[in-house]
């Protein structure tokens, strides 16, 4: 194979999700060309890879991914086009939640995230360690551009710092409020903003709950006065309607990823949208 004569000035990066794409772009600025391998409007776990995405993955100098078992399709794609030159697994950058899935449990239920919950980008504070790792990875590829990356990251974090207190203040009145989530997507978000997720409706995504489980859940929701169910776009509408009628709780659809909702256009807007919707659903301004 012939090596290209001129090394491209920009770094070609493949990110597995739109959230990571935005964070890479925030650090890399115009020195990187980054694309997301998945469409946030589709199920991230059950991805069917397209030829064009394989080509992107092959071109990439750096692969940035969520890690753990968030991208089961990735192993197949990598087997097809060969391992990327540099591989950045960001699950090592953050403190993971939900890691104590008991092994060998007799009553074990199938759990999508056996090594810890993978939705860690939904804690905005995690953007700090994540962008730090991205900065290191990019600077290792283009040492000369390190000052540019550092300046970009500082600018992004300044923006985050400006908004974070506002988000917290908006959700502060609801600290400790008990909510129910449809899927196990929101523990990081809930921890950051002081919500208590006390149960999930679909323990295994895609498998409807059993009547006994649903009955017990509704009873507990009534007793505990749970008013809000956190849902994602594409959550089972009939089930949510049923839950709403029986337990008197309202479903609020939050955006789990940049682009999963038309309003969530970038990483910081994602939190603007979610914080605003949640505050309204909980009865705030």
């Amino acid at each position: 194979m012939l090596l290209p004569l001129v090394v491209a000035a920009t770094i070609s990066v493949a990110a597995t999700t739109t959230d990571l794409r935005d964070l890479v772009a925030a650090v890399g600025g115009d020195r990187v060309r980054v694309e997301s391998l998945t469409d946030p409007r589709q199920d991230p776990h059950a991805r069917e890879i397209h030829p064009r995405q394989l080509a992107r993955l092959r071109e990439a100098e750096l692969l940035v991914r969520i890690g753990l078992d968030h991208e089961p399709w990735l192993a197949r794609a990598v087997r097809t086009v060969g391992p990327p030159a540099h591989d950045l697994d960001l699950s090592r950058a953050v403190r993971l939640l939900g890691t104590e899935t008991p092994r060998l449990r007799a009553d074990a239920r199938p759990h999508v995230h056996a090594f810890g919950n993978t939705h860690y980008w939904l804690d905005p504070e995690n953007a700090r360690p994540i962008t730090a790792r991205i900065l290191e990875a990019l600077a290792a590829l283009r040492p000369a551009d390190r000052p540019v990356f550092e300046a970009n990251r500082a600018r992004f974090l300044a923006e985050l710092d400006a908004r974070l207190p506002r988000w917290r203040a908006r959700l502060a009145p609801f600290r400790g409020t008990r909510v129910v989530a449809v899927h196990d997507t929101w523990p990081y978000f809930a921890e950051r903003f002081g919500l208590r997720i006390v149960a999930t409706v679909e323990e295994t995504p895609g498998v409807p709950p059993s009547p006994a489980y649903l009955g017990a859940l509704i009873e507990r929701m009534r007793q505990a006065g749970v008013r809000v169910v956190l849902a994602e776009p594409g959550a089972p509408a009939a089930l949510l309607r049923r839950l709403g009628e029986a337990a008197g709780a309202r479903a609020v659809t939050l955006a789990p990823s940049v682009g999963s909702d038309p309003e969530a256009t970038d990483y910081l807007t994602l939190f603007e949208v979610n914080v605003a919707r949640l505050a309204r659903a909980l009865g705030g301004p």
Partner: protein
Amino acid sequence: MSLGLELLGPPFLACLVLTGIHAYLGLHVLARGVIFVDLALAQVAALGMATALLAGYAPHHDATYYYALAFTAAGAAVFALTRERRGAVPQEAIIGIVYAVTAALAVLVLDRVPQGGEHIKQLLVGSILSVTVDDVGRIAGLYTLIGLVHWLGRRPLLALSLGGEVRGAALWDFAFYFTFGLVVTSSVRVAGVLLVFSYLIVPAVVGAWLADTIGRRLAIGWTVGTLVSVAGLGASYALDLPTGATIVAVFGAGLVLVAGALGVARLGARVRREGARALARVGAAAGALACLAGVALAAFPQADHWWLDAVEQLAPAVQLAFLTPYERGVVADSRAALVRAQAELARLRALQADVEWGRREMDPAMQERLRQFLVSRDEIAAGDRLVLRTLKGRARERQRWALGLPLAAAGAGGALLAWRAARRPARAAARPAPAGARAR
């Protein structure tokens, strides 16, 4: 806990409505030999829904339903036109092609639709638990209308399904497939593809096994559908399982039960006719299975031998006999510890849940201690399970020769004897018969 049962009210009504129309349509489908037509039409309807989503309608918008309906009508036309009475290509071939192509098209369309995969998954699994009384009322009204149409056109429709000739056959065929598609499309929205298929085929099959006339088959089908609905919903509640899949599984179990009973009845009749010799084949099969189980145990002692697990569950001595006295003591200790641990874990998990839901107060430090205690207690219980598994493995190493080989030998011997017993008198009876025939 009564709330869980309360939740099963609307699903039970939905099941009754499904039984009513599907057991009847199933008779047609079975008679026509177009078993998979409902899967194909459901897939065509799903493609219609997917197209509606692509056009920007929400999954529960009316327009989505009409898209599905229009696609179903097109599918019905295809099936009515491609019915060859004496052709080389059976109708099932066309149905299979329609299924595969529309399923692939749905994948292509949904790839461009937000949450496309989710929608199609929900469509396939269905949400029988989430139906409301309104949903049930709507399909009940529609199905009553369709039932009326079928009652008015019962002569040509039945004649066509049973292979007769009718004037305007293509038109009646279209009427059949279109009403059928209407039912399937509406039912799938409520109950999912698998459940709809089961309600369609299983009652009809049982009816065909047990009776000859349409009326009796229908009565049997309705009975079977109702019984299975009750049993399936009950099992889903009692065993804490997803409702739709449980009902389908109960349909399967019911079919096996009926088939087993029919088999036993037939065997009983043969035994009365031919004496114990009729049992020889069953004995040969049982012997062969026993031989196979023995060989498998001897060859792969550490593999999963479910039959042996079940035997040991019923008679623990089968395992304990292969352990040393010391190992037996360890097994007893671990079992006792596991029982204690399970009770304690259940109690503490309930406490944890109560705290989580705010029914009981506990300060945060204590909550953290409880969480850590639960995790470590879980790990200890996992250790006990590991001990039991290791000792089971040791017992299996010893059972391998002492149990596996004799079982294999006994099974093989028994199978051989039974097989010979099954053949010898048959041959003895067959030989003089031609001679007798010649003499006559």
